[in-house]
């Protein structure tokens, strides 16, 4: 009798234990994801790179945030007002706690802005160097500008706020500099106000995140743990997703999209990306380098540039090279970031017109030119260049392709080797998500050394295109506070570049994330992987 009773008890206890274990298993939601690049130091000021900023965006927060459609929404500042065109006031959210339990106050904001200006910081361009800021009270900060700037706060979603007390206690008061003698231990840790905290971090191997229970917002995710791993090899990343070892991975190689879609448990999430791919033509040198033309530079003639433009069959590049994963573009910015983008149309693909233009310009038999191209930077970059070279052959222009790894490419075609290239391919995402950055970086006048004549950022104008009218428009765009007038000027600048074919825009590449069907995730066009929008079944 007693024996039987004991047995019943044991069975019951066992069943209860099993049920509990099951319940816990059901609750534990571990989200595993992989990216092709590493997550290195966790200081958001020492490497300005999308993936790192995205990963840290789960842990730390800026005064503003961006929603799923990249619209600016309140972050650590619950609201802000423009008191006068040169005075902005930010009202900070109250009751926010850092992950180590400290309170968030205006002092942390001032400290962060000071830190962002120091040597070694890669985020100095997030705000004008002469911006002044002062604390009005514990939860109000006032910013004073030297000249009006309607997009002052556009990049503040990734200007993550540090805890002043924490930084001082661990010695993180300045960003890790590129030439420091040793790595500070804090650079592998993080302390923010965000919805997740870093549980452990081994650079290049594995990073574990856990939800921050004291987060001020209402969690939209249902995760209890997140494990990030780098998987460099494309084939392995695909295999890991197919075998269910990971729940999400980025990027999906274009050729594997069908395979992942065809698998019962996985899908590919695609969407437009912000990056625009385009071609530069050297319009600066008096004699074109690496070309058969001697003593002059055919690219100085707008007819030659237009001929090149019209010789490119952009739909064929989309269909064959990009397998549908691109959106042909007529301007240098994504339509997501500039509402009037559709008012400019691409010049049509037309080989006869292109030949006619070349003949008018005095090159009826074409000429030879070398196309420099990176082969590990953008989606199918080398293949795009091969296609362009083949298309140019139809108008008798013999293009020699010179593809190389990005580290060499940016050295040769860019400023370090004084733009040693006559024809090249580049991609650009404006850090500020705004057209001014595009115009000033890619199409503003520069000298042979790369110094901008008017706009200091003209370093990436690899072709040396120059029209003083565009420079003037850019200067006016910075100062204009009225959105409609501003957009009109932006459109005019893009139109000017378009009409004289200063550069040849190709397309915006598409994002492709491989996801398990048990996971829902929001894909944002800037390719940040944000864990607080992930739910797992």
């Amino acid at each position, binding site marked *: 009798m007693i024996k039987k009773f004991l047995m019943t008890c044991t069975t019951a206890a066992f069943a209860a234990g099993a049920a509990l274990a099951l319940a816990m298993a059901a609750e534990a939601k571990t989200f595993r994801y992989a990216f092709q690049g590493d997550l290195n130091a966790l200081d958001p000021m020492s490497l300005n790179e999308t993936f790192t900023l995205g990963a840290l965006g789960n842990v730390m927060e800026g005064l503003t945030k961006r929603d799923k459609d990249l619209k600016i929404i309140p972050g650590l500042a619950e609201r802000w007002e423009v008191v006068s065109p040169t005075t902005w006031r930010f009202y900070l959210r109250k009751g926010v706690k850092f992950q180590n339990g400290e309170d968030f106050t205006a002092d942390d904001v001032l400290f962060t802005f000071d830190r962002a200006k120091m040597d070694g910081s890669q985020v100095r361009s997030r705000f004008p160097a002469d911006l002044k800021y002062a604390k009005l009270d514990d939860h109000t900060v006032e910013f004073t500008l030297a000249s009006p700037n309607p997009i002052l706060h556009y990049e503040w979603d990734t200007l993550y706020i540090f805890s002043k007390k924490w930084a001082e206690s661990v010695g993180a008061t300045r960003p890790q500099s590129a030439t420091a003698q040793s790595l500070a231990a804090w650079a592998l840790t993080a302390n923010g106000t965000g919805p997740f905290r870093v549980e452990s971090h081994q650079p290049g191997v594995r990073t574990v995140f856990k939800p921050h229970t004291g987060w001020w917002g209402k969690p939209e995710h249902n995760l209890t743990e997140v494990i990030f791993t780098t998987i460099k090899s494309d084939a392995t990343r695909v*295999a890991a997703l197919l075998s269910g070892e990971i729940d999400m991975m980025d990027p999906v190689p274009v050729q594997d999209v069908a395979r992942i879609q065809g698998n019962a448990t996985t899908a590919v999430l695609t969407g437009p990306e912000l990056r625009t791919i385009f071609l530069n033509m050297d319009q600066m040198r008096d004699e074109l380098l690496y070309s058969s033309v001697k003593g002059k530079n055919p690219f100085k003639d707008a007819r030659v540039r237009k001929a090149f433009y019209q010789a490119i069959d952009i739909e064929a590049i989309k269909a064959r090279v990009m397998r549908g994963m691109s959106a042909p573009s007529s301007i240098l910015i994504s339509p997501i970031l500039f509402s009037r983008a559709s008012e400019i149309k691409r010049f049509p693909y037309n080989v006869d017109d292109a030949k006619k233009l070349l003949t008018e310009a005095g090159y009826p038999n074409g000429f030879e030119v070398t196309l420099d191209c990176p082969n590990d930077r953008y989606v199918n970059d080398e293949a795009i260049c091969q296609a362009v070279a083949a298309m140019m052959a139809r108008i008798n222009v013999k293009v020699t392709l010179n593809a190389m790894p990005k580290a*060499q490419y940016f050295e040769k075609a860019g400023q*370090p080797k004084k733009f040693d290239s006559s024809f090249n391919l580049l991609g650009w995402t404006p850090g500020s998500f705004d057209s001014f950055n595009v115009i000033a970086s890619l199409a503003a006048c520069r000298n042979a050394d790369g110094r901008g004549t008017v706009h200091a950022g003209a370093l990436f104008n690899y072709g040396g295109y120059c029209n003083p009218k565009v420079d003037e428009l850019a200067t006016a765009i910075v100062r204009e506070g009225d959105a409609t007038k501003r957009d009109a000027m932006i459109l005019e600048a893009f139109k000017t570049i378009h009409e004289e074919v200063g550069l040849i825009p190709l397309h915006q590449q598409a994002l492709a994330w491989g996801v398990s069907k048990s996971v829902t995730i929001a894909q944002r066009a800037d390719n940040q992987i944000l864990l607080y929008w992930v739910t797992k079944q």
Partner: protein
Amino acid sequence: MLAFTIRRFIEALIVMLAVAALAFVLFRFIGDPVSQIVSQDATLAERLALRAQLGLDDPVLVQFARFVWKALHLDFGLSYQLKQPVVGMIADRFPATMELAFAAAVFAIAVGIPMGVYTGIHRDSWLSKVFLSISLIGISLPTFLIGILLIYIFAVTLGVLPSFGRGQVVKIWGWTTGYLTWSGLKALILPAVTLGLFQMTLVTRLVRSEMLEVLRTDYIRFARARGLPDRIVNFRHALKNTLVPVITIIGLQIGALIAFAIITETVFQWPGMGLLFITAVQQADVPVMAAYLMLVAFLFVTINFIVDLLYVRVDPRMRVIGRGT
């Protein structure tokens, strides 16, 4: 003997210096590290300042002298990308690569020797032909392809082994090991097979040809004539005598296993030194590349040095040459 050792030591030093010089010349062509460090919005002034800080504007000879001088103090500087001391980074990754290379070597020997013996004894059996075909695959297919094939069979289709990573690791006296956990051992299988396959085929073919040779010798015939059982003839007398060259080859191949681990580590995302090196190449991270190349050169030079010394011990003729000069 001492003179021989000293001469070999000096030769080893010259090799190291030559590797350093070659590496340094190569680094002039890998591209611009600065554009890999700064943000795209960094101004020209910031870029130029960073170049100067990193010492990239100094003459090549000055840079080289500085590099050698620091390397003598085991200081390879700071990774441009991670901003961490390179020596520490490589030390962190060292156990992973060594464990992988060791497992691959064990696999190569444990599978290669029996296969070699079998194909040597039963020259014409169908199983021998199967073994030889497998070894042909191992020798002719590139490593990355074998790795991807194995991943697709064992991870994606069968779902029995992990496709990437090292599993759970345990830290013992600063050495991280995957040998002590179940997931660590499972994760080790595919990379070790991939890396060791080439060496395994080498061992198979070597043992086979040595066996064929030895089995023809007089003492084996006499042994058979005496009526000794096949087992004793084949394994005690024949196999033992084939092992001398096999051991030499394996010793020399350990260096190759560590160096070739680059590809296997990339395919399996194995967190070892090779993966670190590949990443460094893509990012033009010169300090990491330099330190890795020096380490690999050092391993090769050391192994060769030891093998040379062993030869002198084993082969009396070498000792005479050593003394004579």
